[in-house]
Structure formats: C-alpha cells, structure tokens
C-alpha cells in the first residue's frame, strides 16, 4: 500500500490520478484538468444532476416541486435553499412520489399520475415540476408522457425535468435540465405573444437573504424595473412574461448562460454578464446596465447611487481592511463566477488568497482564476476533504469561504469560515452585502476563540 497522503510542500494530491486537477496561480500555466467525472472513491464535494436541477428551479415560489423517486432525494432537498419569497411559500414544501420496491419492479408511472392528481386536487398550483431521479430514469418511467397527459387533464403546466442523478456527478448537467424545463415554461403556447417592455430579466439570481430585492431597489433608483428574476422570488405567471424584457442580465453563468443564449435566439433579447458580489463588481455591473439603456437620466441616477453608496461603505470596509490585511484565505465553492467574485472581495480587504477551488469550473474560468492569484497559490478542481485539509494546513490558512461540508473541516482545523453557499441566510450582494461579507470575514477570522484553540493545538502541524 502506498504511503497515505505524503505531507510535503508542493502540489501533490493524495491520489495520483487527481494530480492534474491541482495547479498553481499565476499566468501561462498548464491547463488544469476539470469538468470531468469525479474519481470513484475520492470523496468529491460535488452532488448530482438532480441536485443541480432542483437548486435552480426550487425558488419558483408558487410551483410544486415533485421528486419522482425513492424518498431520499426529496428528503435531502426539502427547503434546502435560503431563497426568500414575497408571496407563496409552496416551494418550501418537498413532494415525493416515494417509490417503493413494487414501483421499482412494476414501474412508477401509475403512482406518479396519482401523486400529480392528488397535488392538483389539494393545491391547484399553476405548475408542477416533475423531477426524474436515478431510479425513475433507470427503470424508464416516461415522465414526459405522464407530464404531458397531466398537463392537458388538469389544464396546468406539468413540466418534466430530466434530472436522473446518474447522468453525471456534475451539477452543471442538472443546471441544463432545469434550463430546458424553464424554456418549456416560458415559450408562449398557442400563438400567444408577450409585449416587449423596457424592463430587464435578472438571470442566475436566487434571492438568498433577499438579494434580488436589494438589487431591485438599486435598479428602481436608476429608473429600471426588473421583469422577473430567474428564479429567486419568481412565480409561474411572472416567468411566462420573461419574453417581454428588453435585456437579460446574467449573474450565475453556470446555471443560466444557456437560458440567456436561448432567450436571445427565441425573442432577440440581448444579454450581459453581471456580478453583484463586492462593491466594485456591483458598481461596474450597474454602470454597464445603465450603458445599455443609454439614457442621460439613468446615467445620472446610477452615478449618484454609486457615489452615495461607495462613500457610505468605504470607511466601513477600510476599518475591516485594517484588521484583515495580510490574513490568508482559501476559497472552495460550487461555481467559478462566485470564486472570482470572492477573490476580488478578499483582495479588497487586503487578504492573500492562497487556495481557490470550485466543483464545476471550466477551463477558461480557471485561467481567469489563476490570473488573479500569485504563483504560490493553489488552484484545484473538484477537491476532496483530504486535499483541502492538506492545503489548508500547508498554506497556513486563516479563513475559508465555502459550503456547509467544508465548514466542519475548517473549524476542526481551527480555521475561520464564511458561508457562501445556497443555504446561507445573509445577503452578500450589492453594497450592503459587501459590508456584511467584510463583517463575516472579520468576525470569523479574528474571533477570540482561535486563540483559545491554538493554545491546545499540538505543535506538529503538517
């Protein structure tokens, strides 16, 4: 048996086949190996196709989300996102067809039909998303036919989401399944059309901690209205008005780039990338939106807003910067756009980023990430806990930003942690979010508890 996890400085992975998925910062590096299937036995932090689809669609507030499969898939995703709603709370329920052995052997379509009928009778929802899972996909239940028949039987939207978990371990494939489902919902039927307006759609925005509402406030001040967000605090009726927007702004590109491209093809709506994580990113995004409208009044309001907010938050951020300068940070998140935004924000706080990784980054995105980091930084795709542990210790990290699974590891290693996941409760977007983010980084990095923990830590660290 090979020596377990050789602890020497450098970029060695514990598993040799993972070697090419680990690289370093700086420009002109050899390409990182990414977007591949996770290695068997490597304890990947990734999820599955179903998970990707569910997190994208779940914030549609008045829709019923029905998982066609055995119980687990629904249990684990019940009310899993911190997305907030201004109206219906239907999306916070978790519906499952609860397939049993009998259904696996004889087929689950009959039960699925019964479930849909029961839900319609009890709730009369405007739409039901029917998610395929490993088992329903494997035994070949025809959720498309069942959905179509139920749609016409009940005169509501019953939309199949082809999210059988085994198709891939990569959430991005699930994002696509969700995107296809969204397009099915949006494209007008029976020759109906949607009138074009001056409003914009906000794609890849999930209203975590009320983020959609905050950006809505900024845009309103600029004189711009949001038509509908995909999918934070959206309703079925509002999503059907999506073709009426004159512009699509796209935040989470991983989940929504394909939708934006298709909306452009179908309805000739142009799109642009935005990013509201960090004050600089927010200002830049607002300016580019203003430029699209190219209206003197909008320009004036935008600049006034940015000037006012920047003046307000600059001294606060400066105060945190003083405390955080020189601290060492690690990032491990789902999507690359988020990693890029966090790198920028942590740099604004004077911090050094020594490790950055994502579950689903693409090659070009990793090039961007590497370009933002210096040569001592580690860049990693689809990391496992052993690798994270190794680099967190080796790089003497003070604070990490990531998801729930990484949190417990960070704390065990005596390292601060910032929740940047879809379960978080705080608004981290916009100018206000930049302050909240800085505050979160500060309270965890500089918490007095670390001093107490370090007193008992064994001298031998890695």
């Amino acid at each position: 048996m090979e020596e377990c996890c050789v602890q020497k400085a450098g970029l060695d992975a514990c598993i040799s086949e993972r070697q090419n998925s680990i690289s370093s910062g700086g420009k002109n590096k050899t390409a990182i190996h990414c977007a591949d299937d996770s290695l068997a036995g490597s304890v990947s932090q990734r999820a599955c196709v179903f998970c990707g689809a569910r997190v994208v669609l779940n914030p549609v507030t008045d829709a019923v989300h029905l998982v066609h499969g055995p119980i687990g898939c629904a249990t684990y995703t019940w009310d899993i996102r911190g997305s907030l709603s201004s109206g219906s709370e239907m999306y916070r329920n978790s519906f499952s067809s609860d397939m049993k052995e009998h259904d696996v052997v004889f087929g689950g379509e009959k039960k699925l039909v019964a479930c849909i009928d029961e839900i319609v009778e009890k709730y009369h929802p405007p739409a039901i998303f029917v998610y395929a899972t490993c088992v329903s996909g494997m035994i070949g239940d025809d959720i498309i036919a069942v959905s179509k028949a139920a749609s016409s039987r009940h005169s509501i939207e019953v939309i199949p989401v082809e999210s059988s978990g085994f198709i891939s371990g990569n959430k991005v494939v699930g994002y696509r399944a969700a995107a296809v489902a969204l397009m099915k919902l949006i494209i007008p039927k029976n020759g109906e059309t949607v009138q074009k307006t001056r409003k914009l759609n906000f794609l890849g925005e999930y209203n975590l901690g009320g983020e959609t509402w905050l950006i809505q406030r900024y845009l309103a001040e600029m004189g711009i209205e949001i038509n509908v967000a995909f999918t934070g605090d959206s309703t079925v009726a509002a999503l059907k008005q999506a073709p009426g927007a004159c512009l699509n702004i796209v935040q989470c590109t991983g989940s929504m780039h394909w939708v934006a491209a298709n909306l452009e093809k179908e309805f000739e709506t142009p799109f642009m990338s935005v990013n509201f994580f960090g004050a600089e990113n927010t200002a830049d995004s607002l300016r580019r939106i203003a430029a699209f409208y190219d209206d003197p009044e909008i320009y004036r309001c935008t600049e006034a807003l940015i000037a006012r907010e920047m003046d307000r938050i600059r001294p606060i951020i400066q105060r945190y910067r003083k405390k955080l300068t020189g601290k060492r940070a690690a990032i491990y998140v789902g999507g690359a756009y988020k990693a890029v935004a966090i790198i920028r924000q942590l740099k604004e706080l004077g911090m050094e980023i020594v490790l950055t990784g994502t579950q689903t980054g693409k090659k070009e995105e990793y090039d961007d990430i590497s370009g933002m980091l210096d040569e001592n930084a580690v860049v990693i795709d689809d990391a496992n806990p052993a690798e994270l542990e190794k680099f967190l210790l080796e790089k003497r990290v003070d604070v990490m930003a990531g998801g729930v699974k990484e949190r417990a590891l960070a704390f065990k290693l005596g390292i601060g942690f910032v929740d940047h996941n879809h379960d978080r409760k705080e608004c981290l977007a916009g100018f206000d979010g930049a302050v909240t983010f800085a505050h979160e980084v500060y309270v965890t990095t500089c918490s007095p508890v670390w001093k107490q923990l370090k007193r008992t830590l064994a001298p031998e660290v890695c």
Partner: protein
Amino acid sequence: MDGTKPAGRARQVNENQCQMCMPLGGVIAFKGIENSMVISHGSQGCSTYMRLANVEHFNEPVDIASSGLNEKQTIYGGEANLKKALDNVTRVYAPTVIGVLTTCLAETMGEDLDRIIQDYTKERGATGIEIIPVPTPSYSGSHTEGFWAATKAIMAHYTRHSDHHRRINVIIPHISPADIREIKRILSLMGLDYTLLPDYSMTLDRPYGGTYQKIPLGGTKPEDIAAMSGAPLTIQFGETCPDELSPGLWLQREYGVPLVNLPLPIGLEATDRFLEILQKISGHSLPELLTTERGWLLDAMADSHKYNAEGRPVIYGEPEIVYALSRICTENGAPPLVIASGTKNSRLAELLVPVLADIEDKLVLLEETDFATIDVAAALAGVNIAVGHSGGKFLTERRGIPVVRVGFPIHDRTGGQRILSVGYAGTLAFLDRFTNTLLEAKYASYRTQIKEKMMIRSC
C-alpha cells in the same frame, strides 16, 4: 387509550418527509466501528447528500466516499468503479474496515456486491482490510432499517466462536453520541465490562485537540465484536427492531447468547428497568451517585408535574426513540395525542398499548407518514408541543407549536450530537427542556390570552 391501530398514509404523495434514506442509517452504524470508512455505491449525489445531513447534525466532518456511478456504468455495471473506489479510499484513509452501502441505483442495476468484493479481495491479495457490503436501497426502508441492517451485517461479519467471558453486549439504536456516552458511564458505574455496538460516541463528536485525523479515533474494536458470541448476555435497546434485522436476535440464534430487549432508558421506569438488569448481572447494588441522580429526577418530576400536565404533545421520529419518548411524556402526565414515524414498524402499536392503557384521550398513531399528515393530525388533536427532530420546524412556523428537539436530524440548531436524554441524568435534562418549552410558550402569550378570554368586550 383508544385507536392505536396504525393509520398509514392514504395518499400516494409524500409531502415533507419524516424519514431519511436507508444508506444514511448504515453510514452512522459504520462510523461506530474503529478505523472504518464507508463507500456509497451509487451516484455521486447520494454520498454528498448524506454527508451534508450528517455534517449539519453532528457539526463534524463526515467523509463518505462514492463509487460515482454514471450513465456508462448503468449499462456496463459498476464493478470497475467500485474497485477503484476501494483502492482510492484505502490509499487516502488507510482504514481497517470499509462498509459498502448500496443505493437505490446500484440495487436497481442489480449489482452483485458479494461477487465483486470476492473478486477484489482475490485480485488485491491480503490487504488487511475487511470489506462489508450491506444492501440499503431506500425504496425498501428508511434510515432506521439501514442502521439495524448495517449493525447486524457488521456483527455477522466479525463474530466468531469465542470462549465465554464476562463482558456483556450492549446494542444501541440510532441515538446521540451524548446518549451513548451516558450509557457507557452507567455501565462503568455498575462495574461492568461491556462491548457496545456501534460506538460512534467519539467518532461523531470528537473533542478538539491534537493533529486532525481523517478517520476519527474511537469506535467499537473488531476483536471485541468478534468475541460478542462469548458474552453472558446481550442487552439491546431495540424493542421496535424487526426480527429479521435484529443483531441481538441473530447472536442469540447463532451463538446462544441470551437476549434482553429493553426500551431505551429514557424516563424513570425505563431507566429503572435497565439498572435492575445491570444490578442483577453485576451483583452490585445501585451506586450512591446513581441513587442521587435518581433522587434528583424524582424531585424534578414532582416540581414540574403541574406544568407538564398542560402538555399535549405530538411525538415523531424513528420508532425506538418515539416509543421511549412516549413513555417519558406519559410518565410525567403529558401523554402524547399524536405519535408518528416516517418508518413503518410492526411493533410500535402493540408496544404502546400498555404505556397508554389509562389514558382517555384518543391517540392518533401514524406510520410511514409525512409532515403534511402529522401537521393536520396535530392541529385536529389540539397539540401544544412537539417532540422530535428538525423536520417539525413547520409546526412552529405555521402552527406556533414549539419543538423540543431530539433525534435526527437537528439541522437548524447547534449541538445535535450533544442532546442527552438517557439515564436518570439524561431523563432529567430532557424533562427540563420539555417543561421549559411549555413555560416559554405559556409566558409568551398567557396575559393576552386571558385578557381576550375573560374581559367584557366593549362593542
């Protein structure tokens, strides 16, 4: 008592789940074995979801590997993936035992685990690693069955003929690490040697300090499991455990070790029963410390009984803990009006008959149920307090019914791993939580309520 006949779900759809999936229970059992690691044989998502649920509850890193099956393997089989997963887990974690838990997908594909593992062992030669497969498709059971199935499989894998010895066997259901530690403390206070299975009291609640270990220290030792066949007695807290999954019953049938099935020692009577047996086996009388703890509990029961009499609880969760909690609530004058489990269990109804014999209120017993059903039953019965895991959060959000958190999962409060409810001390801790939850709700609203009820309203 009336109406203990289990009322199942008439509906097809499950709305807001009251149970987790079968392999999750298996993972927890394996985490109670020394130097063990688990592989979930299925899609990547299954292992990630189970890790998430465990991390949120235990506030510990809980590593679960996946064989990462995808589309290709669903056609050609997952053998190569599983073998690779075994290799990689061995390399990174250096475990001495690997539990392989199947998922819905692997079972639907018809993976022949025994043969794959046999092949693997032949190909790799003596690696010194025990590989224990457990079929755990969640379409045939919840995490409760997964826990028992894995515990039994572990026992069956290790146990050999052993000379008679004095160590008793203690087999636990899915309880908190703090509960396990309390049971162990009681056994030690009684001067008994024991083998407790599965012991995740340290592995899923590790103290801080020292170098981080990928596999936490602690857990039941394989050599101790092997010798469970030579024990004078097995105590199993598994009155609701189905015969076919019962580790204690298996041991009795295979090796003739007498089995005493007990209710979890939650509540005075149940703890007394546990200690009576321990006194009989050890020949020791109750040590002073436990006598004092018993006295404190009795004192608290008297102090709180009038407050507790206002409790009209709904109790939900896994059958074994639901049974124990029903006993403690009834014992303190707050018999449950609704008892519910996401798991189907053939024993619960029968076990509850004597517990609730003198109770006039009609009991609603729900099995294989969901929270949509529990919610309606609780409202109809006029429930004012809930006892169970975090899944009941909507009872508070939507009905204003407070939840005394106990069981698994606790994901919206911290310290799920430290919730103590067993023994005299644990019973007292639970009782205080229960009583104070009632009092907090009462003080929050009784002035307004009495005003509304009593004062003459001006038109």
